């Protein structure tokens, strides 16, 4: 199995680069938040599930990235996530997973 580490390292670099290069720092800061909000329809606001779906808030980034990679590779059994995960770039998934990892799992 291919290691997730290079992908993670690369995407973290990209994330940092994006933040540094952006003319408007607010934009970079909000990009991860905006991307993560596309998950909330199923996984709950800020990834805090209202029930019946996996909560994403507070999940370590490495674990989330590995799961998403497995969905995309068809290695993780799925009804729908294998199709959705393919719609995002590595950089976007990295931003999303970093955002969720940085949240408190409990309701604020």
């Amino acid at each position, binding site marked *: 199995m291919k290691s997730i580490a290079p992908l993670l390292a690369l995407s973290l670099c990209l994330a940092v680069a994006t933040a540094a290069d952006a003319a408007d720092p607010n934009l970079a800061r909000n990009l991860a938040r905006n991307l993560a909000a596309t998950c909330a329809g*199923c996984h*709950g*606001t800020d990834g805090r599930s*209202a029930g019946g779906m996996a909560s994403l808030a507070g999940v370590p980034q490495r674990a989330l990235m590995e799961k998403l990679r497995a969905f995309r590779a068809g290695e993780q059994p799925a009804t*729908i996530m294998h199709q*959705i995960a393919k719609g995002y770039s590595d950089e976007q998934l990295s931003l999303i997973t970093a955002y969720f990892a940085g949240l408190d799992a409990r309701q604020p």
Partner: protein
Amino acid sequence: MTHRRSLLKGLAAAAAATAVPASLFGCATATPRAKAHVVVVGGGFGGATAAKYLRMWSRGEVEVTLIERNTRFVSCPVSNLVLGGYRELADISVGYGNLGTHWGVRVITDDATAIDTAKRTVSTAHHGTLSYDRLVLSPGVDFIPNAVPGLEGNHDQIPHAWKAGPQTVLLRKQLEAMPDGGVFAIHIPKVPYRCPPGPYERACVVASHLRRSKRRSKILVLDSNPEIQSKKALFTKAFEGYKGLVEYVPNSELRAVDAASRTAELEFDRVRADVLNVIPPMRAGNIATRAGLSLVNGRWVEVDWLTMEAKGTPGVHVLGDALLAAPAMPKSGHMANQHAKVAAAAILNLLAGEAPNPAPVVMNTCYSFVDGQNVIHVASVHQFDAAKRQPMPVEGAGGVSAAANEVEGRHALAWAANIWADMLA
């Protein structure tokens, strides 16, 4: 400073309007606020989400007023289960209370009667005139008047049940009263219409109910379109499972209806039904026209997909089913929820004098029941294409279920609980 200035101007305009209750601007009388004010018209999947996210993402720094005519949100998704007797209307209804108590949204139960986009004001039936710095319009759909001769004013005899609520209950009662051996006819308008898979799901769910209780009945799916418009292979398979009970009739354009005899006059046929469910041709909710927005083909609002602002009307952000959709983008509650987040982010950027996100992403998931338990989905992810200046579906991503299954039946209900919470909790 601009915001402060425009807000003060807005407050002055509001003060000048005689009908504004003082309580609406309560604390403003003591200390003039520098907070921007966003008015949201329509508390469905788009509007409710926008109201919550504007408060959440601004950490309460932006004032938000939501104008919604109904006291409770009733979900169109899952409402076909009410028709099949698997759920009650209360199960698909959520109050607006938490938007106020959890998020500080000012919720006004009222009709928005007029919008002046030059003066930036919204008039209401009972709460006077409100000023806004930015307006979110999430008007849903209204039916095109006189599109089907004989239908106007006869929605009691020929329900649409395409806006969940009393119409859903009415159609269910008619189905309950239908004798065994009766004919239930559903008419589907030409695309685009709200919820592409919805009519086919309705046929399946009602069929699963009738198969248990009224086996000699018949369901006619009269489709103006030449073929099933969503999850075609999966619905075709589902219809095969209801052989003898469900009959799918494509290219069935509706010429007129007769409410007294519940008759549908089709282009080449005349169908008399015991229960006749006509989903009328629709367009952006009427308030969009009253706001002076230009509608493409007289039906849909065209937006700038980076900000969701209506073309030609800056400051008015439009969401949901009312939009001229981007390629392969469905008119769905889930998509409206996604539009709302793009709009909320852009509004906060614009209020702060920042450029909006140049690369917004939206995605969609639609679950459809083929009976009381088994479900099929369609999903897609749409990335903004800078060259085309609109979101485009990502090739190789998205798709449909392999087959109807119970796991997704549970997911469909969990999806509903989560998206209702994302809007309203």
